[in-house]
């Protein structure tokens, strides 16, 4: 799956978790840019992404992403490996 497609699908997951259909994210987006993106919502995001892409992040990974781009690259790598 292309990275752009991953970001698009992750964007939909963000919309769902934050309950905000107007939310737009890109590679540069960080937790600071999104209202309510706290440690609890982060866990929700991680769980929702794992379910959606049928992948598993490691414990170290989930708190190591600097921005959405890194997260999506990790997703993309996992999908393409399997």
């Amino acid at each position: 799956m292309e990275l752009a497609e991953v970001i698009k699908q992750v964007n939909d997951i963000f919309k769902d978790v934050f309950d905000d259909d107007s939310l737009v994210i890109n590679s540069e987006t960080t937790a600071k840019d999104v209202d309510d993106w706290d440690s609890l919502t982060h866990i929700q995001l991680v769980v929702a992404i794992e379910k959606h892409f049928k992948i598993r992040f490691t414990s170290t990974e989930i708190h190591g992403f600097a921005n959405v781009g890194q997260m999506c690259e990790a997703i993309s790598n996992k999908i393409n490996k399997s």
Partner: protein
Amino acid sequence: MPASVKSFNELKRNLKKDFTAFPQKKLAVLGDTATQFLVKALRGYGYEAELNLDIYEAEYNQIDHEIIDSTSELYTSNPEYVIIFQSTQKLLNNYFETAHAGKNKFAEERLSQIRNFIATINERMKCKVIFFNFGEINDNIFGNFSNKLDFSFSYQVRKINLELMDMCRETKNLYINDVCTLQNMYGIDFAFDPKLYVTSDLTLSLDFTAVVAKSVVDIIQSLVGKSKKCLILDLDNTLWGGIIGDDGIEGIQIGELGIGKAFTELQLWAKQLKERGIILAVSSKNDSEVAKNAFDNHPDMVLSYEDFAVFNANWDNKADNIKQIQQILNIGFDSMVFLDDNPFERNMVRSFLPEVTIPELPEDPAEYLTYLRSLNLFETSSYSEEDSERTELYRQEYQRTVVKQAFVNEDEYLTSLEMVSECKPFDSFTIPRVAQLTQRSNQFNLRTIRYTEDDMHKISSSDDYLTLSFTLEDKFGHYGLISLIILKKQGEVLFVDTWIMSCRVLKRTMENFVLNNIVEAATANGFKKIIGEFIQTAKNKMVKDHYKDFGFTESNGLWELDIKAFEKRKSFINKKQ
């Protein structure tokens, strides 16, 4: 995610919705691990159950402190329900820290700590405690051999779970949230996400948090008096496989034939529900005689015709049939569950009677029972022996309705019933039933104050109260204990704290008999006035003019009756001596 449980996301979205129409219940949540998700899920499930749960969440891992410190927010927040969640992960760590010599006493120590917690809470405030039992983990230090060792973790955790059952049997205000069963049902891989535990000290996965929250809200719902009382069953392809009208009595699948086992087991389950007090009824598109014949003559049938309080096998539409069942049983639509394999019938009934619970049965009958069990439809907060006779009581009622049609004159009919009532103060035999009535009665209930058995023991032994319980029987059978009165002494006045009557005995002049007895008790004890109050709820409209109709006069929102001016009211009930 199982279809029967809301996802955490859905529950979180509920938090933004309007709770103002729902009754408020105060909760306190104490946990030894992170509880933020649990608290959100609880409030979100409250919305599903139409409860406005106002939750105090204690700081992380402060169970001891909150309970021991009498000035803690646990006490100042004054909750009706205290939820205590100790995780198995922490339990296991404690066990590992325990020296070998102490490991076989590990459960005892933990149980005594829990017992102390609950005793301390009970000394300081009136509330109900919902304690989570422990999902089992085998630490696999000994493998299966741990079953042979009394100091193994498996042994100790099972001992805690078993003894918690004994503890809550002895402690009336203690209820167990059976996390262990839930974990068995969904599996540890579903229930526990190691990553969330390691990074965030969360011992419940997000999906399982929703499952656990539902279970807590199920308990609270049953404690506030919302429970299912009646199971209405379709017949063809629900209680047996095939269509009896086409396949004939020999052709339906039950017992050994075809996939009969699926239906046999569903019938066994329904029979157990009936024995514990759920009323069974039939609503089926069938010829009545053909359907009855199957119950009377099929050798593998588990349920019998007599197990059903109402048997509606006909060609009318099912919504009308269920309305008729509701009228005969005189219970709320929201206390009814309707099982039907046919999606069309389910949707039809749903559109006319949205309050009836109608599970979306799986397509394969083999899955019916697992699915139904997962819904936990029949949560209850009490049980008394009398419950098991309930279907029989409703059958008798059905017979009375038939006889009544033969009498032109209501008085003649009532006289013909030869009604007798036993009227006496509460005692240790009647207290479980009177407490249960305060928990369950919604309609003929003037103030809707819920009491536990414990409360009732206090009230009945106090000099500040007079209590009366009433039974009723007639020539058709026993209604059992059907009405109760709690009178609070206030100088020369008796205040009616509680007046409850089962709707099964409406139109029997029972309420007149009760009032006559209240006045008799008041006179015997030297009181001059009786004062009543009506507190409106969503369900007790039928008694809104109760005191007015009895000739009480209104004063400042209360209703007064001067005993001297009272004239005995007409009743066809004789006092049992």
